[in-house]
């Protein structure tokens, strides 16, 4: 087995997704025993993160890896060391896999070009967040009747697509799984070229329900989209009215997802967050197993699956 980078889900396919999801299920069901024993995983987070960092760290430790955590504070990064120099140093120290979170799109790809260790993109600017989209597919496969059952189901991705690395990974992941995808957002939160993905653009969550959405994937709305120097959204009231999910949308079978953290009462009304239609806890729960599978594949160890 060779080490393998996980940089982007752009251009992914069913076979590839299936392999990762199958391995994640094996991990979840306890059929893999310490696949990363003797390996070193380095978490290099150049941007604040709580849930993703914790989830990766837990995954690496459960896989038996030695874990080095490098956060923006307390590292050479604050001394002005460049991304490339930092990851080259980690590589030289013997890291087998570097999990990288960075505020600029393309950082993971740039790092991967300079080092031998595998790079796992844990979120780069508005670029990609592949493990988020993969764990979303895990949670969805469980909620429906397995990965194969996702084919032909309709998912609406709602909110700030323009600034979302989650959307840039979820779109190819859902399409790769055979789902139909539509975007629900005002033009201020979409790329200028609304045909960039060649997906239908719908004006509201209500319209998404009419379109037949079975999955409402809600993106987080950053406050600065309303109040910054160049606001893109008028108010919480208007955003919630058209781009928020409310009780009335929860007709039988619709699933609500969100990468977290949720703005209650903005993109999701408070009484929906923990409704049974919400897959948000399932998404978080799927994170450790999925990231264990990704780290295992990235590190390239021969993993034996117990029967």
């Amino acid at each position, binding site marked *: 087995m060779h080490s393998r980078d996980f940089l982007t889900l752009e251009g992914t396919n069913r076979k590839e997704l299936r392999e990762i999801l199958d391995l994640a299920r094996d991990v979840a069901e306890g059929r893999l025993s310490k696949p990363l024993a003797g390996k070193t995983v380095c978490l290099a987070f150049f941007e604040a993160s709580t849930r993703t960092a914790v989830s990766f760290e837990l995954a690496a430790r459960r896989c038996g890896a030695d874990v080095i955590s490098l956060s923006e504070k307390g590292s050479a990064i604050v001394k002005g060391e460049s991304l490339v120099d930092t990851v080259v140093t980690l590589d030289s120290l013997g890291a087998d896999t570097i999990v990288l979170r960075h505020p600029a799109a393309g950082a993971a790809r740039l790092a991967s070009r300079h080092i031998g260790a595998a790079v796992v993109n844990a979120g780069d600017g508005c670029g990609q967040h592949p493990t988020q989209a993969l764990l979303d597919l895990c949670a969805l496969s469980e909620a429906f009747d397995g990965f194969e059952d996702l084919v032909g189901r309709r998912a609406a991705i709602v909110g700030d697509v323009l600034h979302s690395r989650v959307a840039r990974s979820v779109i190819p992941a859902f399409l790769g799984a055979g789902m139909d995808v539509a975007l629900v957002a005002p033009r201020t939160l979409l790329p200028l070229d609304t045909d960039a993905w060649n997906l239908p653009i719908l004006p509201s969550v209500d319209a998404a329900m009419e379109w037949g959405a079975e999955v409402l994937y809600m993106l987080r709305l950053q406050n600065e989209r309303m109040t910054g120097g160049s606001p893109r*959204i008028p108010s919480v009231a208007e955003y919630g009215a058209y781009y928020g999910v409310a009780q009335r949308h929860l007709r039988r079978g619709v699933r609500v997802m969100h990468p977290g953290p949720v703005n209650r009462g903005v993109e999701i009304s408070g009484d929906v967050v923990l409704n049974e239609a919400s897959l948000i806890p399932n998404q978080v729960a799927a994170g450790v197993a999925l990231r264990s599978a990704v780290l295992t594949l990235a590190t390239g160890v021969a993993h034996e699956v117990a029967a």
Partner: protein
Amino acid sequence: MTRRNGHNPELVIRHARVLDPSTGLDGVKDVRIVDGRVGEVGDGLRGIRKIDADGLHLFPGFVDVHAHWRTPGREDEETIESGSASAAVGGFTGVVMMPNTDPVVDKPVVVSGLLRRIERESRVRAYVSAALHVGLKGERLTEMRLLKEAGALCMSDDGLGTQSAGVLRNAMLYAHSAGLPVLLHCEDHTLATGVVHDGAVAALAGVPGSPASAEDVATATALVLAAETGAKTHITHVSTGVSAALVRFFADRADVTSDTTPHHLTLTDGLISSLEGMYRVNPPLRPEGDREAVREALRDGTLDFVATDHAPHASEEKELPLEQAAPGFLGHETAFAALHTELVLTGKLPLPRLVGAMSCAPGRWVGEGGSLVVGSPADLALVDLSEGWTVDRESLSSRSWNSPYLGRNLTGRVVGTIVGGELVHDRTGARFGIRA
């Protein structure tokens, strides 16, 4: 609207010279109005209620996309009742109210409140433009989709230009998503530091001037953003040759329409040598070259229509030196007569083009009126093209009297205005009567 439902819904207007440039109709015809709509256009139509209109012209009613009825907040200057009466006197059957009132029309409840008052108080069809930004401050976007649901027709920060292109671009993108056109007052406030056009007259008079670039730079920005965002954009009160040329360049590159005003088509900055506050207006009156270019742009269709920017002001805001006076002119009551006198009678603009620019094109823009096609709302203007009259402060229907045409003799007068089949302005009574 305060149009009362007539006991007999039918009305026949006989022997008028009927002109509808949208269909090419031009001839002496009878028009039957049934249930508030144009029912039939033909010859020898009979009816119980009729107006004999021999010698009069009948046009689709004029539509004004730019008016300030000062309600709420400055009802001493204009109300919905007086503004709509003034519009009816001028032959206007549809008017768009601008949102720079007090409070600003930037919340859905203000729109719905205005629409309820329009229903009760307006003699003509009136539409509400809501603000593009909260408080017209060019910062936060208004709740455009909720404003649209409340009944807003379009979005505008009229009276002010948006100073940040980035802010304007987001507003245009958001309005596009909301399915609302934006109506833009194009003015760069870093350039517009004076009170009149920055030209020879201002120089000699010693009054601070604002250069034409204040309008042109902002117009260029708006047009570039319209082309890039795809937003439906209307550029209001184009007053310079350069801005007209910019509109011409972008005509097939953006979803854009534009208007100019009766005063920019008929007056020049020569008037400011009087130093009277009356003549302050924004954009300012321009020199002859700009007036000529704007006339040509209206004639060739570059500028789609005429809008008056009807802007009533109390006398204490106008009887002041130019530098202290409020900018703005009354527009409704003199628009047609001034343009007919200055442009049509002098051979500079064909009558059908004027009617197209005052009725058909703006009617299409608001989505109602501007046509005599059977089935259209019976929104009509009956006009005596030969009647001469003097613009007289005492006889204006507006609550204000700040018309730049006071004392002028104009030729062509609206003698009847019909909205939805009801006579809302009637000077035919004395001469023709409605025969019951």
